[in-house]
């Protein structure tokens, strides 16, 4: 091992991490190191887990991984500590007369299967639902899809990635016709400018941010932070530009206005590779149950687009965005300079947005107009928050409208799925049913009578949990929760199933840069813990679908992955074979002729390009990317007299999402024991609020009491408060609004109106 590390260190100069850590490990320690991807965010760092006597005792960065080159963040280094938590779910628990009774897993699965069967018999297929996760492995997501859509025959399958990535997906599909970024992390090594859109990378994607800081120090690359809150990322960047919530739409259009006005348009690129479109406007916010929306795209020409942009001159936009004319022109000049390479990064700021699809389109517009796309160091890059939001949720398609290849509404895609799954085509319904928010509304209405959640904690992470918690507690719905630890969601479960954690099973994850990564089981899980995929298979067998799931317990991950790969055959999406993934620290799809494709749509790098030009946006039938005319529209709820503050929610470097894992890691809990509400010092002064005082944050939906934090981790703009959502004791999502982007159905957690008072 040591020699491999030394070799790697010489391959990546400046990367001394693994050897550095090696020195910190006592010489007599007899550790066995096994590779895998990190359990937490979508960056997908390679980790090496040290095991000793069957227990995981240490973690270090994988020097062979081109993602992180041996570096991790504090969550990554300590991740294995959570499985030693004493309240680990080790056995199935069935609720009997209000208390949980320890039950053998086979009996619990019998109960789940019979409940599912009974419910379907009494209320039809669409009365059962499954809610999975961007943390499910690829085989787990695949089996969930096959089980629900192929075996049972319902589209009642959605996942928590709807809450974080759906707008990125619809953004990619509307602009390019194919999901996921065109570039890769290597862009960092080439770019001159990094523009981060509402994205605190120093805390949320720290390893990538470190790579950016390294480029800043070594090559003088510049970081521009465009956000609504001053954060650690702002202080590390070369320029911090703050804007009024929701006005990113207007600023993006203003940048395009300036690009066109100053003649910075890459004319040949736009003529050859782009078309212009507009869609419907005033599209609503999805606040009412059973909200429906379908966009009606309409082709327009460049002149019409130019005319539309006249409303977005920097002078006009500066008035309501609170971004100065100078700053808008500065941003436009960065994108407009033909000699500078620019990468735009974003995550939840743009995706969790009632116009999430639009703002994704608008940032693509900037890159398309200037031709800064699909080239090393040039491109828009949508980051993900979950380890397999791309690999599982998006590629396998654990959404109501998706299939492993394509969508349920497309006959050809249904036929393909039916062929590979060996089921009649008619069994796969052609109509999507519930997206995440609507699924829990249906539970509330009593339309869904059985729900099974896996690797997710919706009663902390959904917006407006003040409605959905009582909904899940209702007797009308039978709730099954598969998880590793008890959570507020498992509290309302009728059956709790003990899941294997990350390194206690084989698995595959797919990260933000289309990289698929495999790991083998490293340690035994305690008690009756079982991989999620295997629990699905066992229930499917008990329901009489055994012939569709002919996998072996020992080898099911490999068998399922090989079956799944058939869906993506071809130069546009070929997945690397398992032998390659076992050997290497991941491979980027399309994996063609034994090679990862780092930059899609660029004929120099992408073998799927077939139009003879330099670029080919083959996702669209005409091979051209779409520049969208999308206007600025207001947020559904804005601060007013009664509720005078914007509420923004987010994360901190110490905790990951709802904290069910990271809060059980002592190092992380001690550094960040509880949530807080951040104020701008001026607002705090006016309200007479001191640091640490308990503050009640109230919206029209609910309230939450937290200690005040004034100029500590972050500094929200005046008139805004910020609360991290990891703390299950201070449920800020009781306060948030369940409005969503009508196109992507992704909720907006970043904007609603609240009032604050001392308690």
């Amino acid at each position: 091992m040591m020699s491999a590390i030394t070799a790697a260190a010489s391959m990546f100069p400046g990367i001394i991490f693994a050897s550095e850590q090696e020195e910190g490990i006592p010489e007599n320690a007899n550790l066995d190191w096994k590779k895998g991807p990190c359990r937490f965010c979508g960056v997908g760092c390679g980790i090496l887990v040290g095991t000793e006597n069957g227990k995981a005792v240490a973690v270090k960065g994988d020097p062979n991984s081109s993602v992180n080159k041996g570096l991790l963040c504090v969550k990554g280094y300590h991740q294995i500590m959570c499985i030693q938590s004493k309240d680990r779910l080790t056995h199935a628990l069935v609720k009997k007369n209000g208390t949980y009774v320890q039950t053998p897993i086979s009996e619990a699965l019998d109960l789940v299967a019979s409940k599912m069967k009974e419910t379907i018999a009494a209320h039809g297929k669409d009365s059962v639902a499954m809610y999975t996760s961007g943390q499910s492995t690829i085989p787990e997501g695949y089996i969930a899809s096959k089980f629900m859509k192929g075996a049972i025959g319902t589209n009642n399958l959605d996942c928590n990635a709807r809450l974080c990535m759906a707008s990125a997906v619809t953004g990619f599909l509307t602009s390019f016709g194919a999901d996921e970024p065109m570039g890769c992390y290597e862009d960092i090594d080439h770019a001159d400018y990094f523009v981060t859109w509402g994205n605190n990378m120093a805390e949320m994607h720290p390893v990538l941010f470190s790579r950016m800081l390294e480029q800043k120090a070594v090559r003088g690359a510049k970081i521009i932070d465009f956000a609504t809150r001053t954060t650690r990322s702002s202080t590390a960047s070369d320029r911090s530009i703050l804007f009024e919530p929701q006005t990113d739409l207007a600023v993006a259009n203003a940048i395009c206005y300036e690009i066109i006005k100053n003649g910075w348009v890459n004319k040949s690129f736009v003529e050859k590779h782009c078309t212009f479109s507009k869609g419907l406007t005033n599209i609503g916010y999805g606040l009412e149950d059973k909200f429906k929306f379908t966009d009606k795209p309409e082709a327009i020409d460049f002149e019409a687009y130019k005319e539309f942009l006249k409303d977005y001159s920097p002078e006009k936009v500066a008035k309501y965005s609170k971004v100065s004319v100078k700053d808008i022109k500065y941003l436009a000049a960065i994108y407009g300079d033909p000699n500078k390479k620019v990468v735009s990064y974003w995550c939840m700021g743009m995706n969790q947005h009632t116009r999430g699809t639009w703002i994704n389109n608008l940032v693509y517009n900037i890159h398309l107009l200037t031709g800064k796309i699909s080239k090393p160091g040039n491109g828009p890059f949508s980051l993900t928050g979950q380890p397999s939001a791309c690999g599982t949720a998006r590629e396998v398609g654990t959404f109501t409208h998706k299939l492993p290849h394509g969508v349920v509404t497309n006959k050809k895609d249904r036929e393909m799925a039916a062929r590979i799954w060996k089921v009649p085509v008619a069994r796969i319904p052609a109509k999507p049913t519930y997206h995440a928010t609507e699924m829990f509304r249906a539970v509330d209405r009593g339309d869904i009578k059985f729900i099974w959640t896996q690797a997710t904690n919706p009663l902390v992470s959904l917006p407006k949990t003040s409605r959905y918690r009582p909904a899940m507690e209702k007797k009308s719905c039978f709730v099954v929760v598969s998880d590793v630890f008890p959570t507020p969601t498992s509290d309302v479960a009728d059956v709790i199933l003990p899941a294997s954690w990350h390194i206690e099973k084989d698995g595959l994850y797919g990260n933000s840069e289309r990289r698929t990564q495999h790991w083998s089981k490293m340690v035994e899980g305690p008690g009756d813990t079982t991989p999620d995929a295997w629990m699905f298979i066992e229930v499917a067998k008990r329901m009489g679908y055994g012939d569709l799931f002919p996998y072996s317990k020992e080898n099911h991950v490999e068998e399922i992955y090989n079956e799944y790969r058939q869906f993506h055959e071809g130069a546009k999406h070929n997945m690397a074979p398992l032998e390659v993934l076992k050997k290497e620290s991941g491979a980027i799809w399309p994996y063609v002729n034994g090679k990862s494709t780092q930059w899609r749509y660029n004929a120099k790098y992408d073998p799927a390009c077939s139009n003879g030009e330099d670029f080919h946006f083959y996702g669209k039938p005409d091979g051209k990317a779409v520049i969208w005319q999308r206007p600025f529209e207001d947020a559904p709820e804005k601060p007013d007299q009664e509720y005078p503050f914007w509420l923004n929610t987010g994360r901190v470097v110490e905790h990951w999402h709802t904290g069910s894992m990271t809060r059980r890691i002592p190092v992380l809990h001690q550094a960040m024991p509880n949530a807080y509400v951040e104020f701008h010092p001026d607002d705090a002064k006016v309200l007479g609020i001191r640091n640490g005082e308990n503050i009640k944050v109230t919206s029209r939906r609910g309230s939450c009491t937290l200690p005040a934090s004034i100029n500590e981790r972050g500094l929200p703009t005046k008139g805004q408060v910020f609360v991290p959502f990891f703390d299950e004791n201070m449920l800020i999502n009781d306060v948030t609004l369940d409005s969503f982007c009508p196109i992507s159905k992704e909720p907006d957690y970043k904007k609603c109106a609240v009032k604050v008072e001392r308690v």
Partner: protein
Amino acid sequence: MKKRLGIISFFVAIFIAFIVIWNYSYQVGLEEAYTPVIETPTGNFIPSESGAFRRFDDAGLDYFNMPVDEDHQRSLATYYNHRAYPGAPPSIPHPVAKERSFGGNTCIQCHQNGGFVAKFDAYAPITPHPEMVNCRQCHVTKNTNTTFKDFNFSKPKPPEVGLGANNALVGSPPMIPHQLQMRESCISCHGGPSAPKEIIVSHPERINCRQCHLPKTNAQPNVDTSTFLRQFDQLNEK
């Protein structure tokens, strides 16, 4: 006469202009003085986290390539000797040039960017907060070894450092065992030739220190974090 009319009307015009301007400026002078407040979007507040990356942005400090001069390294013992307690501002261990001098033109000359000082045969420690130039508001010289009265103050023990002292797992990044106020810029003390040899960082190029190293605090939060909202424990079969 006619000849002089021109010159007279010229002087009259100048006189009228003088009266007008003088009146105008008198009136303006009566208005209340007003200095426009230029507001930055953060409202003129410096974010508390801003110190973390500061020293990396300073021109001329190439932490990545600073050599380590083993003959002139400081030790943690001397580092704490100059402090009344861990976390106290260090006293000035050397004679100062001028009593009436101001940080900006004396102390900062050596302590902003460091460097070898032949006179003291040592590297000047780099300050984590070079923007605060009234140095001797906190840092004082030591002019006597006596005390005014005997006293009982016992210096708390500094936090332990070294292999395993602050790590949660074998080989995991050590936690920060000290407070961060006034010391947000990690690299000032943990990098460069003036860093105490026990705490010098091997990877200064990483910059975003607190991505991996978190403060290890014993402070109790003022809210109860031990009981969870979750009812699981009560619901569980006894």
